[in-house]
């Protein structure tokens, strides 16, 4: 239907526009390349729009067919990053292309959702009922988990704990939405949670540090806790109405690190205050709600799961990013969809929204 198309497009554009304003405000006092960063973001938004329209036109059922290809491409890029990371002996989250950095982990999130949506909506040849209801623990949990675990492992190795855990969260919530028996899901969660203390040893030092700092930011106010403290100050000092655009001292005077990427919400909130932030939250909520509505009225189980997956991905990213800005979640490197500076996230989010719109559009054709 046209209405969902327009609603999603308008909301996404407003949020992306606010993102550009915030990026401009946080960088306009800095010198050199920083000053052009908002223009690049504007370019990404434009390219994102192109992708959105393209995805909205492309019948999503083709994704069913291209499923393995997409998954394969995502894995290939992740392996490439992994390999380059080993060669360059350091953190490596992106691949350098001609004039931009491509972050495969963003793409992998979408690929995994498409893969899972297809996996769980396979039908029995005999009676056209969904197979997932008859899955045992191996086919219901373990096999798909292996498919999720491979990219997840590669992403966490990058190291990008946030995106890796995001995959896990999306997997668990999609499992919950399918017909897989609740017992199995609980068993899986138990298996995942119980060895957590064991996994602690595999975390990198800075990741451990961040988790500890999350529990108490003041143990290291100038180190790992600094960002959270400054971001809380930025948000809180906005007050009811905010300090006004271009008047955010926290973000403009460098007190807040990453003020244009992961902590863009703090930048925005400092300038627009409580009211502005509530409006922003409302817009995100409306987009996500639209996604759920689309999912609910879609008869096709693949489309339905895909729509749920995309909405959940958005909701979880928004929630974790903003919660981490407010110090309610540990600092993991997760961008705020549509607002944070970065091309990969922007493009993938717009593609995902385009798919969402397409699902709704194609529904009437069936």
């Amino acid at each position, binding site marked *: 239907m046209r209405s969902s198309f327009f609603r999603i497009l308008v909301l996404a554009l407003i949020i992306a526009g606010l993102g550009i304003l915030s990026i401009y405000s946080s960088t306009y006092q800095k010198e050199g390349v920083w000053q052009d960063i908002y223009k690049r973001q504007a370019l990404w938004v434009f390219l994102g729009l192109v992708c959105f329209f393209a995805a909205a036109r492309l019948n999503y059922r083709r994704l069913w067919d291209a499923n393995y290809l997409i998954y394969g491409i995502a894995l290939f890029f992740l392996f490439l990053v992994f390999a380059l990371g080993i060669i360059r002996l350091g953190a490596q989250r992106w691949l350098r292309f001609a004039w931009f950095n491509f972050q495969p982990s963003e793409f992998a999130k979408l690929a995994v959702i498409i893969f899972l949506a297809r996996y769980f909506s396979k039908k029995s040849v005999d009676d056209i009922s969904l197979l997932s209801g008859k899955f045992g623990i191996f086919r219901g949990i373990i096999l798909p988990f292996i498919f999720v675990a491979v990219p997840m492992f590669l992403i966490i190795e990058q190291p990008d704990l946030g995106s890796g855990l995001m995959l896990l969260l999306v997997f668990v919530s999609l499992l*919950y939405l399918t017909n897989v028996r609740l017992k199995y899901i609980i068993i899986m969660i138990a298996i995942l949670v119980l060895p957590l203390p064991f996994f602690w040893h595999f975390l990198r030092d800075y990741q451990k540090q961040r988790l500890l700092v999350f529990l108490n930011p003041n143990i290291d106010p100038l180190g790992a806790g600094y960002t959270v403290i400054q971001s809380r*100050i930025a948000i809180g*000092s906005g007050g009811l109405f905010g300090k006004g655009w271009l008047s955010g*001292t926290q973000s403009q005077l460098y007190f807040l690190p990453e003020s244009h990427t992961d902590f863009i919400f703090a930048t925005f909130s400092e300038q627009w205050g409580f009211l502005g*932030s509530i409006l922003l939250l409302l817009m995100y909520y409306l987009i996500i709600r639209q996604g759920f509505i689309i999912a609910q009225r879609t008869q096709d189980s693949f489309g339905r799961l895909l729509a*749920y997956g995309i909405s959940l991905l958005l909701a979880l990213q928004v929630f974790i990013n903003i919660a981490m800005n*407010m110090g309610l979640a540990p600092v993991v490197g997760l961008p705020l969809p549509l607002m944070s500076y970065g091309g990969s996230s922007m493009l993938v989010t717009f593609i995902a929204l385009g798919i969402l719109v397409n699902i709704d559009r194609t529904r009437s054709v069936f």
Partner: protein
Amino acid sequence: MGRKGVLKIVIILMFAVLFIGLANLDLLQGSRFRRLSDSNCIRLIPQEGSRGNILDRNGQLIVGSRISYDVMILPQEPEQIDRALEGISRILNISPGELKSVFRKNYFSSSLPVTVASNIELKKAILLGEYKLEEPAIIVQSNPLRDYPYGTLASHVIGYVNEIDRWRLTKLEDYGYKTKDIVGFGGVEEKYDYYLRQEEGGLSVEVNHRGKFTRVLGFEPPRNGRDVQLTVDLRIQKIAEEALSGRKGSIVIIDPQNGEVLAMANYPNFNPAVFVNKRTRLIAGLFNNPASPLINRAVSSSYPPASIFKIVVASAALELRKINLATSFLCRGSMMIGSRKFSCWDVHGMQDVISALAHSCDIFFYRTGLLLGAQNIHDYALKLGLGKSTSFELPYETSGLIPSPLWKKINRFQNWFDGDTANLSIGQGDCLVTPLQAVDMVSVFANGGYLPSPYIIKSVGGVDLSAKKKRMLRVGFRRETLEIVRRGLRAVVSGSRGTGSVLSGLKVPVAGKTGTAQVSRGSTHAWFVGFFPYDKPKYAICVFLEHGGPGHAATVIARQVIEAMIKQGII
């Protein structure tokens, strides 16, 4: 509810958590975070106004301010501080190590500029101002400092300035005083600190996360303190201090017609400049000196008045009609009161009240005192302003003491005897009077029966306060009494055997009374109280010398003062 419903509720809950989190940060803790954000990026560079001047009655400067220059450093990156300190040490000729230790000592927080050298010369300040172009972390601050053009002159009246102490801070915190504020101690500086005090202004600037200056947010010009004009006449003050020249004691000269203090000199005195220059050794010397140079003896110390107290006894007796002009007593050099022998300092023969005052005959006053009774003497002493505070403006005034039978019962647990009355009649015993009270008391006989409330502040910030001062208090003596006492005081000077006859040769007729106070150890205290010119008194004077010998010594100093005043054409 299906699984989808549960998931929907989970999503709504997530947004609710974000909403509550935002409300908590923005609305509940918003003001706290606002403050934190401001303290992150706003730095204040204070600029001092200058403290108000202290002027004499003719508008002559007694205490002023001069500009001193301080060098401060905005703490930024360590290597920048090191470079700046090196540059400063080159210009100021101070070793970098010393500067560094000063920096470390004065460092408070990265948000406050640190003073590394204070009180530097103008030339070097200009050089440093140029160097600032290279090292923006340097701040050259002009700072008005207290300046004392006359050194020790009137030091007790003025007081001194120093960093606020803990006791004053707790008392004055509510009035906007802060730690490290410079406030007055003693004298006018302390009592009128609130008016003299300058208001700090300053530059508020915005800095980034490295403390680097980004822009000026605002400027609040500093406000100078208000000037305080004293009733003191600088010329007379100088004369008095020169006359005292190194002798322990004090000279107070007031205008008996209105109570204005024209001079208040004390010795030992101190140079308030040592507190400005922070000469620690000298300051410690002042506090440890057994002669207590910081004490304003004229108001903060009291001494036995001795024979000047006879003025009180004489006027009380005349007023209560216990004696009159015709009353005479025979002085044979001593008399018995109870079983004790009370002696006079000489053998005077028949004495009436005028000659008894002139010769300071003790026997006459023993007898008069016994006629009066201790309570009457006490009451009349209080009427003449003794034994209680004069509510003078300078701090730490002591009230002195006039004993009475009741006082003795309460404080000494003893009965009052006639011997005590006799002692009191000649101003000995427990009786204590400050020099200011003494001059106030004698003023009553100079102005025709009014007790002045002495004051020293003429105006504050250009507003004349003399109209707001307490009126002269009518003592209510009969004309006759006043006249007789006046004649007696005149006879002290003019009489051939008067105790103050050294003053008789002056061009200006003087009246007064000497006193020699016996003390339990050491030499006697010397007193002279009086007023001049006799017919139309314009000045009342008290000269007091602590352990200065007989009253004669004080009279000689009074003569020096009056002579100098005549010579300079003041009278």
